[in-house]
């Protein structure tokens, strides 16, 4: 049997079996769960090559499942992060009610994401897209918090996006008579002008929702912070990347039809820029780590969208590299927050402090994640951001450079807040009992954090698959090989590595870091929060003196006018208005039988009077 279909059958059967086994005591369900995630992933890497395909017909549509080089890259994200998150989840979700549902949706999410990457036709793309949507929706409402607001909001936005996409799909189908993505991109140049505009916009709405683009991002903070952290790492790390993947494969071909600097591409890029700034500012204002990371995800996806929107080969390279990096470090950070939440019961900075000695490994993983997020060498975030700046400057988007630069500088504030709030500062009595997270939760974090370091120092590991994917999409490198477009890279044998000078800098920094750690280790004195006196007064026991309270107040006050009204406010208003309107419409059904009879008579009379206009007779 074809390996591709086998992978999906195993996923599906595994999901159902795990669900059924969830009430059996013992480790059976955990084993089944891990097996049904890992077995297909192993099969994927051993049995499927780029170019293998599986074709069939269903309901009159031709289906084609085939992995492309670009899909392979994203599959690396999905499967790598998926396996790590699965291992993490087994430990993190212990003693949770309704575990079967969690495992079921987890497996289905991974399956649907792989399915999206395999789909070469729009129908199966949409089917997997929707499965991904509802399985992740069930995760968002899984913990039962605020389901009617946050959950429904997530689904409304997802549905709007998906249906915008579906509309584009059926329009493409009626124009080309085919559901193939390649066919759509080939015949795009021949569409009428209004179709050329409408179809990409509809697709953009669809993908923009999933990748939390600015006016469509409002679902993200709630959804990210309400789903179990074991899933959020996958949610933010991989699931939102599907929007990016869609933008790259569907839009790249279409947008490439517009010349560089066309208003449509500028609009996308600017939407990305606004997303980056808005997400960063909101992230700074958060006191809850989950919300902070959620907004930060929005911001990071903004950078990626900028890259896709600019659309030069280097910008695409930067965007895709950042997508991989974001999956790694955001996965790490969400897992770290999950670990902290599991050990302390809260994810609020203003409550938890001084965990560095209690959870050193979690701290290490978070530190690396934060460094990668902030874009500091030697971790991977730096490479991506550098390439993005390079491509922006290279294509003369100076204003956008300023925006991105502002956003990534401001990002330092929340990076600092995250690290400091949880791990540094004085210890409090309340958290004395806290221990390091279970080993199964720590290992995935450390592996992912190590990944950021590996890709930061040897970016060639990802650059090569990315360039293969871009070539397949029809991008030609402007100068020789892709990596030669950036001044960052250097060829070393057949490996792509950074310029030697960077390695030297990395070595120096690493040396100083180790030196400082060893030197200062002995003469640190640990104090608790209450072990101080302010203005001669000894603080009372219940006073919250956590340093992180009212952090960055001056900065937030400065940008307050920008943040005064969240766009969420308008959406809520709109929703309320619609509901009020519908409350009014339903009064048509008065409950009086005579009124209904009157409607029938009016119906007849109107049509008898209007018969000439209506029926042309």
């Amino acid at each position: 049997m074809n390996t591709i279909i086998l992978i999906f059958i195993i996923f599906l059967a595994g999901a159902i079996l795990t669900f059924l086994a969830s009430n059996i005591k013992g480790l059976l369900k955990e084993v089944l769960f891990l097996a049904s995630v890992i077995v297909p992933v192993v099969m994927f890497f051993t049995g499927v090559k780029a170019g293998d395909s599986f074709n069939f017909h269903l309901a009159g549509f031709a289906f084609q499942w085939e992995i492309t080089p670009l899909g392979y890259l994203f599959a690396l994200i999905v499967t790598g992060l998926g396996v790590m998150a699965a291992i993490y989840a087994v430990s993190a979700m212990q003693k949770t009610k309704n575990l079967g549902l969690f495992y079921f949706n987890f497996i289905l999410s991974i399956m649907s994401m792989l399915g999206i990457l395999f789909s070469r036709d729009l129908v199966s793309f949409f089917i997997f897209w929707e499965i991904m949507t509802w399985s992740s929706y069930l995760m968002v409402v899984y913990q039962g918090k605020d389901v009617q607001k946050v959950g429904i909001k997530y689904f409304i936005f997802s549905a709007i996006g998906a249906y915008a996409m579906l509309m584009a799909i059926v329009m493409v189908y009626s124009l080309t008579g085919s559901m193939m993505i390649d066919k759509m991109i080939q015949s795009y140049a021949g569409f009428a002008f209004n179709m050329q505009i409408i179809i990409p916009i509809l697709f953009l709405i669809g993908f923009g929702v999933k990748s939390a683009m600015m006016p469509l991002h409002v679902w993200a903070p709630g959804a990210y912070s309400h789903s179990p952290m074991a899933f959020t790492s996958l949610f933010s790390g991989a699931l939102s990347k599907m929007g990016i993947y869609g933008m790259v494969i569907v839009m790249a071909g279409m947008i490439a039809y517009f010349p560089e600097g066309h208003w449509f591409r500028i609009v996308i890029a600017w939407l990305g820029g606004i997303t980056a700034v808005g997400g960063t500012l909101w992230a700074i204002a958060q006191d809850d780590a989950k919300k902070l990371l959620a907004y930060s995800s929005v911001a990071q996806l903004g950078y990626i969208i900028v890259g896709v929107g600019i659309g030069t080969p280097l910008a695409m390279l930067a965007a895709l590299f950042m997508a991989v990096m974001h999956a790694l470090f955001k996965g790490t950070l969400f897992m770290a927050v999950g670990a902290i939440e599991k050990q302390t019961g809260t994810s609020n900075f203003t409550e938890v402090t001084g965990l560095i000695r209690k959870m050193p490994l979690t701290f290490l993983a978070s530190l690396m994640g934060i460094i990668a997020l902030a874009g500091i060498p030697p971790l991977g975030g730096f490479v991506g951001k550098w390439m993005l700046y390079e491509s922006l400057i290279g294509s003369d988007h100076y204003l956008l450079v300023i925006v991105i630069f502002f956003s990534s500088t401001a990002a330092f504030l929340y990076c600092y807040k995250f690290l400091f709030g949880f791990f540094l500062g004085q210890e409090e009595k309340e958290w004395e009992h806290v221990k390091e997270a279970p080993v199964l939760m720590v290992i995935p974090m450390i592996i992912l954090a190590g990944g950021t370091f590996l890709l930061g120092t040897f970016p060639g590991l990802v650059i090569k698959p990315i360039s293969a994917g871009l070539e397949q999409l029809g991008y030609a490198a402007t100068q020789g090989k892709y990596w030669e477009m950036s001044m960052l890279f250097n060829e070393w044998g057949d490996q792509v590595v950074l310029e030697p000078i960077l390695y030297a800098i990395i070595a120096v920094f690493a040396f100083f870091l180790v030196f400082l750690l060893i030197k200062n280790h002995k003469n640190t004195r640990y104090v608790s929060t209450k072990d101080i006196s302010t203005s001669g007064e000894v603080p009372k026991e219940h006073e919250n003196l956590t340093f992180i309270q009212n952090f960055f107040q001056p900065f937030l006050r400065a940008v307050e006018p920008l943040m005064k009204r969240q766009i969420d406010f308008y959406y809520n208003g709109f929703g309320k208005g619609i509901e009020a309107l519908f409350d009014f419409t339903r009064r048509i059904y008065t409950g009086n039988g005579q009124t209904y009879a009157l409607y029938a008579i009016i119906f007849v009379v109107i049509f008898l009077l209007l018969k000439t206009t209506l029926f042309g007779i």
Partner: protein
Amino acid sequence: MVGSPVLLIAVPLLAAFVIPLIGMIWKELVRIVPGLVLAYMLVLSVTLLVEVNQNGTIVETIAGWKAPWGINLVYSNLTGLLATIITTLGFLVWMFSYRFKRNVDFEPAKKYFIFLMMLVAGATGIVITGDIFNQFVFIEITGISAYALTAFYTGRNSAEAAFKYLMMGSLASSFLLIAIAIIYSQLGTLNMAEIASKMHTMDPVFKVIALIFFITGIGIEAEIFPLNGWAPDAYTEAPGPIGAAFAGVVVKAGIYAVIRMVFTLFDIPAAHDFLITIGLITLIVAESTALRQEKLKRMLAYSSIGQMGLVLVAFGIGTHAGVFAALFLMLNHAVIKPLLFFSGSYLVFNSKEKRISEVNGLGKFMPYTAGLFALGSFAIVGLPPFAGFWSKLSVLTAAADEGLLLVIALVLIVSVIEIVYYFRVVNRIFFQEYNKEESVVPHKPRFNAIIAMTVLAILILVIGFYPDAVTGMLHSASSDLLDKSGYIDNVLQVGQSLIR
């Protein structure tokens, strides 16, 4: 050969008279015999459908009176498909309600099952008859059984719903009779095929008036927008399984009658645009009303009306793809909505008010029923890989082929509304805490009910994962509907061949 189409109507009518007598022998027979009759109808309709698929349309003349003089029954791919849907649902409703309420004793149970059988027989008759007056009679049979079933519970406010239904229903029959009178006075025949062949000779003014009266009359049964005031009340107050029967049986028959008029009898092209317009209005009004419902069954009722609007839109597109999509929608709706009514009626079983807010946290106590409700919700809003997705996709592609972008956009916007109100309920069932004061006392479904629901759930999954299981049938049914001259020839030639 198991029998001829006429048995589909004759057997249940006969059984309806016999059952009270049998009931004197053994009371349980009153529950069993209708089930046997419905099972026989199911087997018969399926066998006939298979035969029609191979050998072409069966035209049955009654009592030796050939068409166009006598009444004839037409069992074609289209009518056979609809008859099969109707009988299947009839059987499932019987199975579900075999012991729906234990406290329902002999006398009401007798009426319940007899009327259920009559309802199914009447709806089957509406679909397979080839004579407009005969169709009117079947509409009345269906109607009277439906009024009686709506008023089944004496404790509730069901008489009010039944009275509204009856008021609208008898207005409907008046409009139908006027339309029949106009057609008969102009063309001198009641046979559908002959009317269709002579329609071009009719004075256009009378033709349009007749069409308007027909659509109004049947539109009341088919729940077209301003005529559907009775529907939510009747669905709410009737017993749960009867709501399923309304959604799956009565409305399907009504829709069939509308499209038979528009596609075969009347040659007015503008009627298709009319269907699209009226369908869209129905869809939008019903779905927006459903969003603000507090009672579960009422919400399902409005959703059902909305789906029928969508079916009319799809029929209004008028192409093969459009008709195919509409039939697919009807099939899916006939599978999914009964599942929702079945499981929904067990969710709010012990509640007096049947409020949506009372289902909080029931997923913990009755996971299977609640899970099936969730499956139904997922399917009806059109999420893949469940049944509803394929029909929604085919409606949209059919509309896109005709360039009806506004229709696509409106249908999709309405789908978002649909998602909101269904998922609110699913959220309540599974992800909110059970609250002793507010939530209802859970009531486990009986074994026969579980089987009936499981059958529907399996159908949803089968259609969802392998739509080709039904698309072949639907394609031949839609070509059958569009083949007007074929219909006329089939019916009239059988008549002539028997004369010679």
